[in-house]
């Protein structure tokens, strides 16, 4: 049902939104990657670079949904911090598409091959899960309460500085 390869994957430049032909994220994926993030297939991807970022993000963080506004903010911050970020994202997505790399093995594969793309997964993970883009002096906070490390445990914990509850509400077993 999902073609092995679509034109979107090879696109290395931005496509303007085309209302007559609605581009979907599915178009950027192979059967292998599509099977990892089935929820994302119907997501609109009018912009190839942003679409590739969403697809790669979904593969890396392994969630069943990603917030579109957050994706826009993170992409903007990452692309501003590194001019070749969009091209790197396309390249890494292509790599995963073609070689069927398990996200859990990805970092090991890139490190083992001394790939120039090796820092990329960590910078995307850092953006989504910690809300931090860049490192050292150039580090920037772009999300906190909506960073995935907060969202993933939001049923049990509030992010630090946010009150757990009225005095003593923390004495019971977390449910």
């Amino acid at each position, binding site marked *: 049902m999902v073609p092995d390869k679509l034109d979107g994957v090879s696109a290395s430049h931005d496509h303007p939104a085309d209302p007559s032909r609605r581009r979907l994220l599915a178009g950027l994926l192979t059967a292998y990657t599509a099977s990892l993030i089935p929820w994302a297939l119907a997501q609109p991807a009018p912009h190839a670079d942003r679409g590739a970022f969403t697809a790669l993000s979904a593969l890396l963080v392994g969630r069943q949904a990603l917030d579109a*506004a*957050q994706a826009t903010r993170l992409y903007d911050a990452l692309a501003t911090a590194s001019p070749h970020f969009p091209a790197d994202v396309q390249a890494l997505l292509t790599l995963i598409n073609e070689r069927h790399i398990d996200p859990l093995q990805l970092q090991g594969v890139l490190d083992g091959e001394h790939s120039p793309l090796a820092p990329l997964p960590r910078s995307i993970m850092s953006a989504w899960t910690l809300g931090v883009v860049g490192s050292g002096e150039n580090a920037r906070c*772009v999300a906190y309460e909506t960073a995935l490390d907060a969202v993933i445990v939001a049923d049990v914990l509030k992010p630090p500085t*946010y*009150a757990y*509850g009225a*005095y003593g509400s923390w004495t019971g077993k977390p449910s």
Partner: protein
Amino acid sequence: MNASTCCLLLLGLLATASVHAADSTDAALLQRGQYLATAGDCVACHTAPAGKPFAGGLTVPTPIGNIIATNITPSATAGIGHYTEQQFSDALRKGIRADGKRLYPAMPYTAYAQITDDDVHALYAYFMHDVAPVDSKPAPTRLPFPFNIRLSMAAWNLLFLDSKPFAPDPGKSADWNRGAYLVRGLAHCSTCHTPRNLLMAEQSSRELAGGAVGTWLAPNITSDANSSIGGWSEEDLVDYLKLGHARGKAQAAGPMAEAVEHSLQHLEPADLQAIATYLKTVPARHDPADIQAVDSWGAAFDGVAEQRGTPFPDDAEKWSGAQLYDAHCASCHQARGEGSFDGGLPPLFHNTATGRARADNLVLVILEGIHWTDASGVHMPAFANDLSDQQIATLANYLTRHYGNPAATVDAARVGVLRAGGAPSHLVALARLALAVIALLIVLVIVLRVRRRRRRASAGRA
């Protein structure tokens, strides 16, 4: 045991004995009197902050000036120790002091008029025997002219005082009648919650339709579903009166928090239930501005996410509503205004604090916070010292826009007025103006007569 301890013990025994000798009042009566005094919240006005119970001294601001609560301990020199039960009853239910002078209706004798003779008897016993006498007199009340003439209250009473005690409605349940008795009488809910006319008398035709107490809006508590508590369950009402909040609906702040802390939370469950039963039957008064229930506005909203990573302006006056919310409110009410897991830190949507058509109470609770005097202490911090009028206006508008009734907006000037304790009352000015107009008319008449006389005189000369 040493000699001094012996003496102390002996003194103690003698003191106890003398009380018993002087009065055979039984403990149950005194206990009931104490309960009724609590229900009447006498302590709220008749005790100064950190002062001795019932020794008076609290300044009650009213539209006609500050009224200073009197000492109602059984001190013969400074309090009401010399009052007979009849005199006590007259003060309580008719607003007439032992010396025959009139009380100002800051004392809710128009409500207390409903109290039964039996209950007056129990209250009298309690005040005379169980309250510790305090022999110091607070400063007297000095109102501006013309209100310093207490006799004027006699005319006022003639117009507005219904001095008949509560008569149960045989057509209603005992529960309802008990509730009506408490609400209209001792609990004097109408004192704040019933609107008043130009002469400061409660408009009985608009019972509990919403009034004012100082700068605070005392909301409509009739059975209207939108403007009031018509949509609340009786359980919600009991919770509110018992705990000071009803989850997902409202929290008591300002004078209502005091009423809950000092009076309502101490009432027996059956009495709270009775009050709830009665309130649910008070004829609905609808404000057309309330197009939906005041506790149904708003939804979770995240205004902080999009400004993450953006440095705050150095000048805090320029902080946006989201930034003010982030720095000052979100720590408890959370980034999306959803409150804590347990609801103990309340959500800001579906909350009367943000859902009213006027933002005054919201501004006031930001300014003053919610402080109880018991161990629970600060229920919400006050921000009067941390936030400027402009900041509070920006913040309040952010809150009503996203979490509450967006029609409720406020500007810095209004915050300033509320911070200062409200707009100066026009009543004194009006009363004086009326007198001045009369005086002017008299002068005019005299001038005209003199002129006429002069004209005549000059005409005579011509």
